[in-house]
């Protein structure tokens, strides 16, 4: 085809139809979040002492940490879905959840005798955590990757990884309501590992599905 003919055809299709990609991503995150909440409610549900636990700092911290990570990952994802990334991506935002967990670990080290650390770290429920966080994350990850396909990510694997990070953190936030282990030691290791699994899955999905 002659370039001139192509340009003519394109110009006849000028008007825009699709919404901006960050809007599409926000909708996907909302829809995926609702789906994840339903999956969580059906499979696990909140733990029995949930209302009382809300008065405990360690329990509440789990939501602050995972909520911050979800928001930061979603913001980065909305940068990396556009071809101008990484120029406008605020990667330093990741320091916020990092500072939260490092600070919490330091406080926990002061608050508990070192003899108990290993026990706190292993907790009681790590296998459930590693199993259910990825399961709960599946729907939001699928929604986010589908939304990203409408964008123009120039680093597909990285974009997919950010979708995985956001989905994993979102799933961990829901799972936190069920999880009986509240020590930052447990959260850092097992939540971190579970979210990491979803992030790697997202990177693979992005590598395969986000080329255009």
């Amino acid at each position, binding site marked *: 085809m002659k370039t001139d003919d*192509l*340009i003519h*055809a394109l110009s006849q299709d*000028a008007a825009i139809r699709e919404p901006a990609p960050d809007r599409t991503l926000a909708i996907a995150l909302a829809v995926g979040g609702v789906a994840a909440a339903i999956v969580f409610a059906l499979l696990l549900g909140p733990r029995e002492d949930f209302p009382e636990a809300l008065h405990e700092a360690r329990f509440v911290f789990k939501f602050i940490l995972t909520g911050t990570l979800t928001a930061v990952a979603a913001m980065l994802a909305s940068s990396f879905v556009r071809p*101008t990334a990484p120029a406008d991506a605020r990667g330093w935002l990741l320091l916020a959840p990092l500072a939260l967990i490092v600070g919490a670990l330091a406080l926990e080290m002061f608050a508990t005798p070192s003899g108990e650390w290993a026990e706190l770290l292993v907790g009681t429920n790590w296998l459930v955590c590693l199993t259910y966080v990825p399961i709960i994350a599946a729907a939001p990850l699928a929604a986010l990757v589908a939304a990203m396909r409408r964008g123009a990510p120039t680093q597909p694997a990285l974009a997919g990884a950010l979708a995985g990070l956001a989905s994993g953190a979102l799933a961990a936030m829901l799972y936190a309501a069920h999880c009986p282990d509240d020590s930052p030691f447990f959260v850092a290791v097992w939540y971190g590992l579970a979210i990491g699994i979803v992030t790697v899955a997202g990177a693979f999905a992005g590598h395969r599905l986000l080329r255009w």
Partner: protein
Amino acid sequence: MMKTRDEEWAAWMRAGLAGDSVAYRRLLDALSPVLRQMVRNGLARAGASVGDADDVMQETLLAIHLKRHTWRADEPLGPWIAGIARYKLIDALRRRGKRAEVPIEPMIDVLAEAPQEQEVSIEEVTRLVDGLPGRQGEVVRAVAISQRSIREAASGMSLSEGAVRVLLHRRLKKLAAQYRMENA
């Protein structure tokens, strides 16, 4: 005050996104020689043949078109275009088995330069269009090859303008997929 080239192009893009096909065409006409230069530079730097630079350039134009909703109307156009052009060039090099190291700065530089007059190589790839079955084929032939407007094509085929627009849009998306297949 003189507008910079980026401001002028961004204004054409905004008008195009709002449905002004004349302004949009002006943008694409201005872009294609710059993109061609960019692709040639990139292919040459990677040690690949520049013979099919026009294919890569057309694929890039098509990508710019299909992804135009990812441009924010308040940001400069150049870096956005350079991002897409670089991605498509890396993609093309990868398919040719070349190591794909393409720095973005030279591409932004090319965009910022005054446009070079390039002789347009008129390489016919009509088989892409000739093989099209049915209504989509008719629409692309009518609009792209005969350079008719949507309105003329619609009345010639007794379809509504909206229907022709949708067929054209779908066809352009398929064309992008076909480029990838052919060069795979």
